[in-house]
């Protein structure tokens, strides 16, 4: 098999992973495609080293994450100011919350619909300031300190944003926690 053919096979094996990383950080299909393309063009330059390496997945994810964050800071930072002017309450950002049935049978409703699609949609609707650290923490496995370093913000802000993001997701997904149930039960 020629190098090009081998690379094509390699790319088809990893393209979904890279695209998912970019898409969840950028929430924009064409930007995520551009980032994915750039990741694989870089991978081609180091294909000799990457081929057969056990850390290839991690390398691709790291490059995809870094390029996505660069993209966000380069093309969107100028708009952050505007986007945050009217976003006092991150949950009340003018977007209609997803419609669910009564809370009592929300779980069943979610089961009936495509649960993953709903979670994905809820994640993509979070404000960038909450979604990005949340994805980096839960999906990319970075620590708070690493996220703060990558985003160039304070540790406190990262923790606050992640906490708000989780709370917003909980509301959007109508997640019920055991503790809440216990509290309600005791009351």
């Amino acid at each position, binding site marked *: 098999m020629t190098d*090009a053919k081998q*690379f*094509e096979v390699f*790319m*088809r094996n990893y*393209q*979904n*992973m*890279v*695209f*998912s990383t970019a*898409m*969840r950080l950028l*929430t924009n*299909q064409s930007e995520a*495609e551009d980032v*994915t*393309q750039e990741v*694989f*063009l870089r991978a*081609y*330059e180091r294909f000799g080293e990457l081929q057969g390496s056990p850390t290839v997945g991690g390398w691709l994810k790291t490059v995809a994450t870094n390029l996505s964050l660069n993209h966000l800071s380069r093309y969107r930072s100028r*708009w952050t100011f*505007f*986007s945050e*002017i*009217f976003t006092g309450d991150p949950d009340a950002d*003018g*977007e209609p919350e997803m419609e669910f049935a009564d809370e009592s049978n929300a779980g069943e409703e979610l089961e009936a619909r495509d649960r*993953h699609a709903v*979670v*994905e949609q809820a*994640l*993509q*609707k979070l404000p960038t300031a909450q979604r990005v650290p*949340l*994805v980096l923490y*839960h*999906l990319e496995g970075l620590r708070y300190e690493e996220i703060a370093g990558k985003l160039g913000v304070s540790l406190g802000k990262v923790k606050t944003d992640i*906490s708000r993001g*989780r*709370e917003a*997701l*909980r509301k959007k*997904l109508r*997640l019920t*926690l*055991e*503790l*809440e149930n216990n509290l309600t039960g005791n009351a």
Partner: protein
Amino acid sequence: MNPDYNKQLEAAISRELKALPELTAPAVLANRVMATLEQRARVPWYRRSWQTWPVAMQAASLVVLLALFGGLCLGGWQLSQTGTATLALHRVGEWFSGLSMIGNTFNVLVSAAVLVVKKLGTGVIATCLVAAGIGYAMCVGLGTVYFRLAFAKR
């Protein structure tokens, strides 16, 4: 906030997010990357970045550059040993004398601007500043509206 609640919430969100399957990349993406790679491969080696040159060419270019640098250093040293260097410096000084004329013109323009400001008085200047401020605020406002409309998540 209750630390137990936070822990439970973290675990619940982690469970939800980690259960997400990978998104499917568009089918055309792989073809796009391969087409770009083919296009790059057609570019002759000397027009690509130096890191991608053949090793022999990298070595040869390094030797040539080192030789050029050595020649430049030697030439400079030779020049400093003769009176030619002083003459050359004098010539260069003459070329740059034109710059002082530009400086003088700039000074005259600044003086004229100061004179105009003094003549107009503070009222007119304050009005101009307020108008500029309002204009800026309008740009920010319109930019915000544009942003909210263009990037609104649907």
